[in-house]
């Protein structure tokens, strides 16, 4: 299964989004959280993101890849660096709204889709308007 990692400035934000996404992935989706800076404050830690990716790979028990979702600023830049440093094509960053994208990705991952499809589902979340 494709694993998912939520990168956010706050530990509780990342865990909260992961919690909702897991529930929407009907308990099957693997969603790990990486929130906060290296000292436990608000910010981003590349080490925390890399560890979350490792956990996601382990728990998803397979080589299907990992999708990253990030909130803003340094989370996005840090996620980009993790993608750059990973074996090509194994870790992708979604250009997606955090909550909607995480839910879409978890739903698609739980359905057994591959990394490209989970990535596309997350990015298509821009189209899910609150009112239309």
């Amino acid at each position, binding site marked *: 299964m494709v694993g998912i990692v939520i990168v956010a400035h706050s530990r509780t934000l990342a865990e909260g989004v992961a919690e909702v996404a897991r529930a929407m992935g009907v308990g099957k989706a693997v969603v790990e959280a990486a929130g906060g800076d*290296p000292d436990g404050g608000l910010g*981003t830690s*590349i080490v925390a993101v890399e560890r979350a990716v490792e956990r996601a790979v382990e728990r998803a028990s397979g080589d299907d890849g990992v999708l990253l979702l990030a909130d803003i600023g*340094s989370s996005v*830049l*840090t996620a*980009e*660096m993790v993608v750059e440093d990973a074996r090509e094509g194994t870790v992708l960053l979604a250009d997606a709204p955090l909550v909607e994208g995480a839910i879409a990705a978890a739903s698609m991952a739980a359905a057994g889709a591959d990394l490209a499809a989970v990535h596309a589902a997350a990015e298509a979340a821009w189209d899910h308007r609150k009112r239309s």
Partner: protein
Amino acid sequence: MIGLTGPAAERWIRRAAELVAADAERLTRLDAAIGDGDHGHNLDRGFAAAVAALPEQAPAGKVLIAAGRALVSKTGGASGPLYGTMLRRAGRHLDDLDDPDAADFGGALHAALDGVRELGQAAEGDKTMVDALAPAVAAYEEALAGGAPLPGCARAAADAAATGADATVPMQARKGRASYLGERSVGHLDPGAASTALVLRALVETLEG
């Protein structure tokens, strides 16, 4: 020709860390005006980690890569990935050269700029560190073409970076937290451009010192 030896690269990172530490409060104050108010503190922490991670008796490329890696790991804000990418790309460009000359280092600076542009998706005029780094690279290359040695090229780059940073004051931010402020971001110096100018000043002080 005198090039950027491993020990010179080490001294550059140490001097940059000193200048950032000395100016941390000013950088944080600049960031508090339009950003999230942590730039000086974050970069100080990052450069301190870079100094702690400096390898012994390594060529300049390896020194910069190690410093970049530490910056990414320990900085905490957007400046970590950006400065980390800057140093890592420059380091990779220099690779294992024992004594990179002024042209080699010019290529490294250009690679650093490309890396920062790519990662931050920022162009000149967006009120970011690119507004200091891009003119610095252009000035370096012009000095190099005019036959200047490494310290002269670095001096041209640092002067252009300082001018470029000052030029961010009237700009409206198009990247980062400051961009949410729209026109209210006008009238403030960009903290990333200011710290970039500082890091290049450290290079000049190292080479001329």
